[in-house]
């Protein structure tokens, strides 16, 4: 039998565990397991007293293995590894038994079963711990350059903070200009600040910072490596413009005959040309040629832009460029998409001309937008006399998105105010609940109430142009139950604005996968911990900021952008990272060179050394998935920390109570050596 001395600590976690699992019984039971020298239960193992208890026992009792039966290893494995390390024990000899998330919390209605399961889990962990080997984490220097993906307000702030601290930032933006959604807005709630006035200087700073390299019209195609040392492949799409020559004068787009609806910046409400700069304050100032709508790219004729360009900057034959860069940390700030209002046909968007989306309305009120800031109906001239604003379109609705988009109530109030200000129309807000949390937001609501906006509490059922009552002809009728008075109401209006939900980017799951992070059920990127680690992800060195993490407004997006900067700067300050030494190793003396493993590694970490006829793992490339380990038919690849023996022992431990119930069967087990 093994000589190891194991300490088992069963945590009560207040009532979280002790309320369901009989922790005293379990710890007493654990005390009689082979190799267990110490078994205790304690109120809060993660407290400093709990940790000190472990440290003391390691020193006094000479423990060589520690098993803490408590919460998920994702919660406190680092905590207890730290305690072990402080007491001079190799942290990789620690094992966590998850009896909270995987037992007490899920078997609350069956306490005896939860207790029995806790024993099995602990038995497995103890057996596994005996097979653990001391490991040393790899140390690697941190590359001081940071990649920021997405140049919305969140990404801009992250980039500026990091650059301001003196480190290089690579900002990759998919669109021709940075700015994100905020660049589309005219005013921002609740202060009614002019969006351009507060955003443009930041964009300008990005463009002019010596520490920020801006790659617009570009996208990240591939990410390899690990915290501190990522290798990123970026595709710079061909602008068809030589930016060293272009001065941004605008002669090209003024002469371009190809007009198309601008679905991105103008939200479909306005037009742009084939060669275009999305908006006047764009950073960088250079246009791009959209080859899909360019006449020259369609039929080889036109070239008007080329003719009129004073500097000869138009380059029709420019090709995409692929750059490979090394960065130490990555901030994802890819933002959100808006809900497609056509998905709720009852509201008539796309069918009823004067039903607008909130994004369209943003453009309409924008002084530099398609209507020069005038609030008008689809005909472009008539000002509405009555306007309905419908909240929660695609939010809080089990047919579309169940979550609350967090910003629409406030944006709707902003719109109500703007409509009033610009047209003096009557405004009806159809809301389910008015959500105006956060500083000064409620004040804005009060102000709107005072301004005489009508608030109808009830989800709008339908928007129709079928008049039934006098006064409804030629109008749009919003039908809703006013739940405050308990009555159905039909409100005839001229214009309807749908407050569409904020949704994850259409490609969010692809992007998440490319960067090795997860998505929530709704599709937003998953943070490491919803409360205590909201901008980190499960992948070290990859952070998330802004609305890619979930619906939020500008101040929250900015805060997250800056928070990611703090995290990145913290890592850069450390200078080096410790990397989990979970790697595969091939015993070359015993590798037969069958080459089964060669093709399996997702990171091409396995090389075949032809002269020797053996395969070899490059530890710098291996991430320890264990695929090759499981596949090797000779069983000569060791997967550190998840070794064959450790898992086999854990299985035996977990099944301690069902392993040999039949005493009639005696099996002489002698595996061939």
């Amino acid at each position, binding site marked *: 039998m093994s000589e190891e001395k194991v300490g088992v600590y069963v945590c009560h976690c207040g009532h979280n565990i002790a309320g369901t699992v009989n922790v005293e019984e379990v710890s007493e039971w654990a005390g009689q397991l082979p190799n267990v020298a110490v078994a205790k239960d304690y109120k809060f193992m993660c407290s400093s007293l709990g940790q000190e208890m472990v440290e003391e026992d390691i020193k006094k009792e000479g423990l060589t293995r520690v098993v803490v039966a408590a919460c*998920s*290893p*994702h919660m406190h494995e680092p905590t207890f590894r730290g305690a072990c390390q402080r007491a001079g024990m190799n942290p990789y000899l620690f094992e966590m038994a*998850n009896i*909270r*998330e*995987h*037992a007490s*919390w*899920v*078997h*609350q*209605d069956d306490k*005896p*079963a*939860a207790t*029995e*399961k806790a024993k*099995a*889990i602990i038995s*497995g962990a103890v057996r596994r711990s005996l097979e653990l080997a001391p490991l040393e984490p790899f140390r690697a220097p941190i590359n001081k350059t940071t990649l920021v993906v997405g140049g919305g307000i969140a990404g801009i702030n992250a980039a500026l903070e990091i650059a301001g601290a003196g480190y290089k930032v690579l900002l990759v933006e998919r669109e021709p200009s940075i700015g994100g959604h905020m660049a589309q807005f005219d005013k921002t709630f609740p202060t009614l600040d002019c969006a351009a006035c507060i955003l443009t200087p930041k964009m300008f700073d990005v463009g002019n910072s010596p520490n920020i390299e801006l790659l617009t019209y570009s996208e990240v195609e591939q990410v390899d490596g690990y915290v501190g040392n990522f290798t990123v492949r970026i595709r710079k799409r061909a602008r068809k413009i030589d930016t060293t020559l272009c001065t941004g004068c605008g002669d090209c787009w003024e002469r371009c005959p190809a007009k198309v609806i601008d679905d991105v910046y103008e939200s479909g409400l306005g037009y742009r040309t084939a060669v275009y700069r999305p908006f006047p304050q764009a950073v960088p100032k250079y246009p791009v040629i959209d080859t899909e709508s360019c006449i020259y790219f369609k039929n080889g004729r036109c070239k008007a832009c080329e003719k009129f360009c004073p500097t000869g900057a138009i380059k029709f034959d420019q090709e995409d460029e692929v750059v490979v860069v090394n960065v130490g940390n990555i901030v994802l700030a890819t933002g959100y998409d808006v809900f497609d209002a056509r998905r709720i046909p009852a509201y008539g968007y796309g069918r009823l001309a004067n039903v607008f989306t909130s994004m369209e309305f943003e453009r309409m009120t924008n002084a530099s937008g398609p209507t020069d800031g005038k609030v008008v109906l689809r005909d472009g001239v008539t000002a509405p006399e009555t306007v309905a604003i419908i909240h929660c379109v695609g939010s809080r609705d089990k047919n579309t998105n169940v979550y609350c988009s967090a910003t629409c109530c406030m944006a709707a109030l902003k719109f109500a105010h703007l409509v009033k200000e610009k047209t003096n129309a009557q405004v009806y807000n159809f809301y389910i609940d008015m959500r105006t949390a956060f500083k000064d937001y409620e004040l804005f609501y009060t102000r709107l109430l005072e301004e005489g906006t009508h608030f109808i509490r009830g989800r709008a059922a339908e928007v129709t142009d079928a008049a039934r009552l006098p006064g409804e002809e030629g109008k749009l009728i919003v039908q809703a139950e006013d739940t405050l008075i308990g009555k159905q109401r039909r409100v005839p209006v001229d214009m309807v604005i749908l407050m569409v939900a904020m949704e994850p980017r259409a490609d969010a*799951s692809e992007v998440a*996968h490319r960067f*090795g992070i*997860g*998505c*929530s*059920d*709704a599709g937003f990127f*998953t943070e490491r911990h919803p409360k205590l680690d909201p901008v980190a992800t*499960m*992948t070290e060195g990859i952070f998330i900021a802004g609305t890619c993490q979930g619906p939020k407004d500008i101040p929250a997006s900015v805060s997250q952008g800056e928070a990611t900067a703090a995290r990145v700067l913290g890592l850069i300050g450390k200078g080096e990272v410790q990397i989990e030494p979970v790697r595969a190793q091939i015993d070359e003396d015993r590798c037969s060179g069958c080459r089964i493993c060669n093709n*399996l590694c*997702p*990171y091409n970490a396995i090389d075949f050394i032809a002269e020797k006829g053996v395969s070899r793992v490059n530890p710098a490339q291996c*991430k*320890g*998935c*264990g*695929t090759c*380990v*499981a596949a090797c038919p000779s069983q000569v690849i060791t*997967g550190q920390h*998840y070794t*064959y023996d450790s*898992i*086999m022992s854990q*299985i*035996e431990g*977990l*099944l301690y109570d*069902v*392993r*040999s*119930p*039949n005493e*009639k*069967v*005696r*099996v002489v087990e002698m595996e061939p050596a």
Partner: protein
Amino acid sequence: MADYSQFNPAWGDRAPVIIGFLCNWCSYRAADLAGTSRFGYPATLRDIRIMCTGRLDPTFVVKALREGADGVLVMGCHPGQCHYEEGNYKAMRRIALLQRTLAQLGVHPDRVQLAWASAAQGGIFTETVKEMTEKVARLGPMQWRDNLEETAPHQEEGVPL
């Protein structure tokens, strides 16, 4: 404790025991989330954390069955979502081949199952455990060692099996 004899009288007062292999990045977290969300499920699953379902060595599955498990549940990230790109595809192929092999050894494929759950799918995790428990409960207990017990006529006392 739940009464499994309603599914199959052979259970008596026993409950099924299922060994789980959960990948660190998705399904283990889904199980954590089920916990944090207090989604209850039968206490039949005893799980092992592996980094990726690609680490799943079929030996672990046969080992678990041999040691008395009534079933084995392997869960990983959805295809295209594996933290290591493609470990789950390899798991799918191994499990397919394993199920076919085990069928020849009389092990019903319902006893060795593969399923996916993302880190956000605590509910799917819970449902999977419930469903698998029920399937295994219907199949009845599997004490593999009973198969190795010899019942030939005139067996001498004490001849080891």
